[in-house]
């Protein structure tokens, strides 16, 4: 055994057939799993001219070799597809238990193609797979869908990844939700699932996932566990959740506020992780095999929900000018129930708020209006009223009304919770992200704000291109392995490589893991070039490039990605247009 389940299931919804094939050894060796499997299979199967919502697009759910093997924080699976929001080949990552269950059911990856004639769900059951009728599930929320499938099978142990009404309505930033609250959040993967009339995928099974070298893996697991337990950062994640960042980012004067009009929110304390822990937090919660348990179970006036994590906390809070933590938590719950990306939904609302205040759109909502914000979240999910226009994402919405500059997005995907004007390396990372506006394809916040693995001055550009490249490649490797990215605050490339080597039996050291990551990055880049992306897209909104910050230490600064882009391309072995050189492609075997 080698940590893999050994099979990939191909579900052709147009033909109503499933095909099960062995996981190719070459795929394991070159792409490892997770995001690597997803991007390779997607780019092999789909013509670059395909519309993301066409039946010819495919949806790949893939776990990594470390998913579900008992390694601490080894819980993740990745969803890869052509994004209806950005148009790029993207992946979205989720935790919880589904990735483990997928492998227990016998599958390393699920490849969904075609479009079902009527609503369908896919059942993976101990090595077998079948397509079932989901007519009775259409219209249901993610929680209702999960309960209905578990009831139909009379098995609470079955795990369900599904879409809500937002995915059915093809909201361009609809997500896929597993275990009711864990999201493969970004890029509109839920809309692709909806376009295929696929409501849910359920998995159950009891197949053993064994590593190649049990004794070695046990020893590496012990080492990794000790590092995680002793790391102060992981301890803080457990206590305050990811929302501990609210005060940190705000005190650094890089908290995007009111659609990035400023970078400090005076009432940040009211929506902080500290306030959450002292008020609505009921308990913390972890994914499969997690010893950090950063998840938040919150009680809002008797309504239990999971989250908010830092990103939606910021986006529904400071970015919308809202300081009501209960409203933020409620909005986050609606996103989970309806299956909406809890970054793009609120940031698109923040875009509307600015456009309405400036008189570019006639609408009553204003910054700080919690009630109006909550109504808009539901309208987006149902594509009702102005929600139908907002469901296209902030870029298309703002463009429609003549003000694309007010969409705070890169490659049409809304930016996350950090102002690049005061964090130069992060600005380069998000501008060059192959999936669009993003923070988890290379988390430069770690060195530039948090001081991990070492403190880098966030205001300087020198040296940042190399850091960004290394972080992007390592993250792609971690995403392929099945480990949670949060482990990287405590672990280094050597640790991941040792885990992969012991689990798979393959010769993998830190350099090889980085090489696998670089291969994935370049494959994604190469394919997206075929879809029309180029240097012009590796950029940020004009506001962040031209309008200096006005408060605190980073006053006067703008994002200076122009100082770094050429060097970044050169380090990557790309030409001035960002096209990988033949030598680089040969080196990576592409």
């Amino acid at each position, binding site marked *: 055994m080698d940590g893999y389940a050994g099979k990939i299931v191909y579900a052709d919804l147009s033909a109503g057939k499933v095909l099960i094939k062995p996981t190719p050894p070459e795929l394991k060796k070159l792409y490892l799993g997770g995001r690597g499997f997803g991007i390779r299979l997607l780019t092999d199967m789909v013509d670059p001219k395909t519309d993301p919502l066409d039946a010819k697009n495919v949806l790949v759910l893939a776990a990594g070799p470390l998913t579900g093997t008992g390694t601490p924080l080894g819980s993740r699976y990745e969803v890869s597809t052509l994004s209806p929001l950005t148009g790029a080949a993207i992946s979205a990552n989720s935790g919880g238990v589904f990735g483990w269950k997928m492998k227990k059911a016998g599958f390393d990856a699920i490849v969904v193609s075609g479009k079902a004639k009527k609503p369908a769900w896919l059942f993976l059951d101990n090595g077998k797979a079948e397509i079932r009728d989901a007519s009775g599930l259409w219209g249901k929320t993610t929680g209702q869908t999960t309960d209905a499938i578990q009831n139909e099978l009379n098995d609470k142990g079955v795990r369900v990844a599904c879409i809500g009404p937002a995915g059915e309505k093809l909201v361009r930033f609809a997500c896929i939700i597993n275990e009711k609250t864990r999201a493969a959040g970004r890029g509109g993967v839920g809309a692709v699932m909806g376009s295929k009339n696929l409501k849910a995928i359920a998995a159950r099974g009891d197949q053993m996932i064994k590593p190649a070298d049990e004794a070695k893996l046990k020893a590496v697991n012990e080492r990794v566990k000790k590092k995680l337990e002793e*790391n*102060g*950062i992981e*301890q*803080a*994640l457990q*206590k*305050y*959740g*990811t*929302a*501990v*960042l609210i*005060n*940190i980012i705000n*005190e*650094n*004067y890089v908290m995007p506020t009111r659609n990035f009009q400023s970078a400090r929110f005076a009432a940040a304390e009211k929506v902080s*992780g*500290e306030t959450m822990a002292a008020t609505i937090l009921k308990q913390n919660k972890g994914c499969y095999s997690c010893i950090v348990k*950063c998840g938040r179970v919150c009680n809002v006036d008797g309504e239990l929900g999971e989250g908010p*994590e*830092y*990103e939606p906390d910021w986006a529904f809070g400071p970015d919308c000018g809202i300081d009501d933590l209960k409203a933020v938590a409620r909005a986050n719950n609606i996103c989970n129930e309806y299956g909406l990306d809890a970054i793009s939904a609120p940031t698109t609302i923040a875009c509307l708020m600015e456009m309405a205040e400036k008189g570019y759109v006639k609408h009553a909502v204003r910054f700080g209006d919690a009630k109006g914000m909550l109504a808009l979240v539901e309208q987006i999910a149902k594509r009702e009223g102005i929600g139908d226009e907002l469901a296209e994402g902030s870029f298309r919405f703002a463009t429609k009304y003549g003000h694309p500059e007010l969409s705070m997005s890169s490659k049409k995907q809304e930016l996350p919770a950090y102002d690049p004007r005061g964090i130069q390396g992060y600005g380069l990372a998000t501008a060059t992200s192959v999936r669009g506006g993003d*923070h*988890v394809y290379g*988390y430069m*916040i*770690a060195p530039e*704000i*948090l*001081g*991990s693995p070492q*403190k880098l*001055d*966030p*205001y300087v550009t020198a040296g940042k291109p190399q850091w960004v490249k290394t972080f992007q490649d390592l993250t792609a490797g971690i995403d392929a392995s099945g480990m949670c*990215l*949060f482990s990287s*605050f405590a672990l280094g490339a050597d640790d991941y490589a040792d885990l992969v080597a012991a689990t798979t039996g393959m010769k993998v050291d830190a350099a090889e893991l980085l090489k696998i990551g670089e291969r994935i990055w370049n494959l994604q880049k190469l394919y997206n070039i075929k879809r029309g992306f180029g240097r012009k897209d590796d950029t940020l909104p004009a506001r962040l490039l031209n309008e200096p910050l006005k408060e*605190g*230490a*980073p006053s006067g600064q703008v994002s200076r990605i122009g100082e770094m882009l050429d060097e970044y391309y050169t380090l990557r072995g790309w030409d001035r247009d960002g096209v990988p050189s033949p030598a680089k492609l040969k080196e990576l075997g592409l």
Partner: protein
Amino acid sequence: MTGAKDHVTVTVRAFATLREVMDRELRCEYPSGVTVGTLLRDLVQKYNGLGALLFSDPETLRDYVNILVNGRNMEFLAGLSTPLADGDTIALFPPAAGG
């Protein structure tokens, strides 16, 4: 009158686990010329348990502890020797992360 103040008053703000051992916000007055290092040593004397959260040894901050002076990490000023001016705000963060 020299025109220079003899004392400076600074505001200290504490976050996350630090709030379990110290006030979340306080104002402190010091003679002119005070540094971040002096301030921290003073706070460690004042609050039981704070030293272990901030320092790995008397002169070295723990990994990932971040001290901001008016929003700027002191690491990129003059470290523990960073001088404090009247009206400065110092934010203290224990190791923490999110994403």
